[in-house]
């Protein structure tokens, strides 16, 4: 996976850095050369100004250049017979060149840059230590390069900011798209999106629209079909009762009981199909609702209690933490209720079902631990499939309970998982909820 932003950022930072280094180096070279020329010019100017002075003047033993008193300059004035008239620093012994011009000398380990001027009556020699010249040149060059050196890291910062700003609409788009999967009829906004990306967004909107239509159609179909089937099932139920009522010895025919069982299974299945269609429906609200998890578990517990009592199953809360979670109260009651009902259905008479509510970090957990037979590993992965039933067909239940639970969990951002107890003494169904922000 490559990030456009990272790629562009690295390339632009690299580019700016290379340009910065080249510009800096170039400026440094030019500046050093210019400084050299400037200092040479200075030496010549001093020589010329000394030559213009009347010969009597010039008692001053040293002439210091105005700008920098450390730029020690030695002025040596001689007559045409190379006899010293004045020397500002007699300790130096720089050989005097025979013609006007610049020259370099090493005297006593110190390097000098010298300008010699052969005037009409005098010879003027102006010298400066090379080391000092170099120092001054570098100092000046450094000042020239400094802004560039500072601008390079600043450009990195600028590049980073620019790209994260330019790509922000894309990040917003991603978040919007992610939210769109769980809500109904959302269209992605094109405002603030770069024009290059707008066609992509339009295409996505198209696809989203079609997908929503398809989902809505599918849900409507399941729900409509189940609703439509309710009337004939009711008609059939009533007919069977009427028939049974009209036969005095109806009690002798077990077929009536079997027909009624079949019909009640059919109506239970219709009910489950409707629940599933409803659980699959996207949330109308944006999902900011929170629910009292403990109250939801109690309500689900109360709903399953009669069924558990009939099977003499000991059903109760083992330990609980008190917490609010994200989701709609009704959804959570139904979700936990489905799992408890499932546990009651598959736990043999006289068994035990414990419910735990715990908080771990930002998550809240509900665990339903039964003392049933558990599930073989192969079945664990398949139980969330629609109409999959591990138990034999004559067991009550439609094979939709866990699918409904999973769909409800998806609605409130929760996760359902099943695992066998370590010692195979039953099944643990766990729901991980997102705790509501306090």
């Amino acid at each position, binding site marked *: 996976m490559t990030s456009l932003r990272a790629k562009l950022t690295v390339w632009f930072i690299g580019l700016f850095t290379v340009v910065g280094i080249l510009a800096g180096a170039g400026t440094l070279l030019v500046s050093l050369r210019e400084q050299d020329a400037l200092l040479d010019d200075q030496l010549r100017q001093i020589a010329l100004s000394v030559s213009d002075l009347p010969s009597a003047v010039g008692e001053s033993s040293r002439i210091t250049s105005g700008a920098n008193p450390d730029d020690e300059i030695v002025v040596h004035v001689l007559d045409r017979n190379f006899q010293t008239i004045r020397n500002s620093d007699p300790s130096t012994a720089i050989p005097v060149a025979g013609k006007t011009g610049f020259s370099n000398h090493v005297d006593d380990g110190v390097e000098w840059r010298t300008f010699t001027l052969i005037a009409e009556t005098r010879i003027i020699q102006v010298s400066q230590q090379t080391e000092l010249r170099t120092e001054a040149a570098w100092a000046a060059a450094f000042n020239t390069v400094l802004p560039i050196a500072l601008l390079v890291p600043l450009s990195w910062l600028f590049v980073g900011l620019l790209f994260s700003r330019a790509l922000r609409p894309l990040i917003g788009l991603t978040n919007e798209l992610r939210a769109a999967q769980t809500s109904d009829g959302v269209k992605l906004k094109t405002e603030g999106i770069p024009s290059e990306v707008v066609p992509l967004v339009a295409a996505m909107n198209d696809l989203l629209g079609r997908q929503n239509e398809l989902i809505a159609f599918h849900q409507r179909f399941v729900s409509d079909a189940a609703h439509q089937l309710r009337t004939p099932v009711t008609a059939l139920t009533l007919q069977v009762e009427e028939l049974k009522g009209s036969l005095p010895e109806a009690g002798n025919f077990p077929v009536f009981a079997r027909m009624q069982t079949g019909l009640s299974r059919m109506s239970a299945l219709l009910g489950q199909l409707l629940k599933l269609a409803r659980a699959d429906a996207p949330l109308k609200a944006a999902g900011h609702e929170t629910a009292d998890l403990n109250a939801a578990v109690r309500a689900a517990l*109360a709903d399953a209690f*009669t069924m558990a009592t009939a099977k003499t199953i000991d059903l109760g809360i083992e330990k609980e933490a008190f917490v609010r979670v994200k989701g709609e109260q009704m959804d959570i009651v139904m979700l936990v209720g489905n799992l408890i009902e499932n546990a009651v259905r598959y736990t043999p008479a006289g068994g035990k079902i414990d419910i735990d509510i715990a908080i771990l970090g930002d998550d809240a957990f509900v665990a339903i631990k039964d003392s049933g037979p558990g599930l073989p590993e192969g079945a664990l992965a398949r139980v969330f499939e629609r109409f999959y039933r591990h138990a034999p067909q004559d067991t009550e239940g439609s094979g939709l309970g866990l699918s409904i639970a999973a769909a409800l969990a998806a609605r409130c951002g929760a996760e359902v998982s099943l695992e066998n107890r370590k010692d195979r003494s039953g099944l643990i169904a766990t729901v991980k909820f997102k705790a509501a922000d306090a």
Partner: protein
Amino acid sequence: MARRPICAVGLVKEKRFMRVLLVEDDGMIGSSLRSGLASQGMAVDWVQNAGDAEDSFRSSVYALVLLDLGLPDSSGLEVLKKIRTAKNKTPILIVTARDDLPSKIAGLDLGADDYIIKPFDFSELMARIRAVIRRQAGHSASKIECGEVLLDMASHEASYRRTRHVLPAREFALLLSLAERAGTILSRSQLEERLYGSGEEVESNAVDVLIFYIRKKFGHDIIRNVRGAGWLIPKDRP
């Protein structure tokens, strides 16, 4: 969708030879219901569309209306609205295949007395009919019946299965709290809140003591323990 508890406030008294208007467009359901209700001693007028329903309603007086919402010519909700706008208080029981919350709320808001969802069987329908009639008959609200528990508010008499006792105030109040919200678990603190004033000092085992005495009179099963959660009285008869 949880079913409405078959609990009723009012006098438990059968009404005989009631005249019932049955509005149901499905032929099979209609004929079965007509013969079923007739066998219960009711006189049934069966119509299959909204227009006929309104005509019958104008010309006769009924003790009860069974109203299907999905009618061929208009919605049953329209019929309901017309009946209630005419300030007619005849009990109306909606019979429908639609159990989504909005249409349920719409029905009850428009003044239906109860709501029964297809598929149902005849005994369930009769229980609802009896409950609606009882509610209509007795606004005196002197008795509460829930599952197997019957409470007389005036005399503080409670009956359960075959036992019947007049209870001390606190025991009666506890039983009433649970019966009013039958099928709902009440925790110790919720019960204490209902039984004792806010300033009152409550012994930590006060609720247990009351329940112990109630069970001693009626048997252990009148109030069920829900481990780790609290107590409840089941909503349905087992």
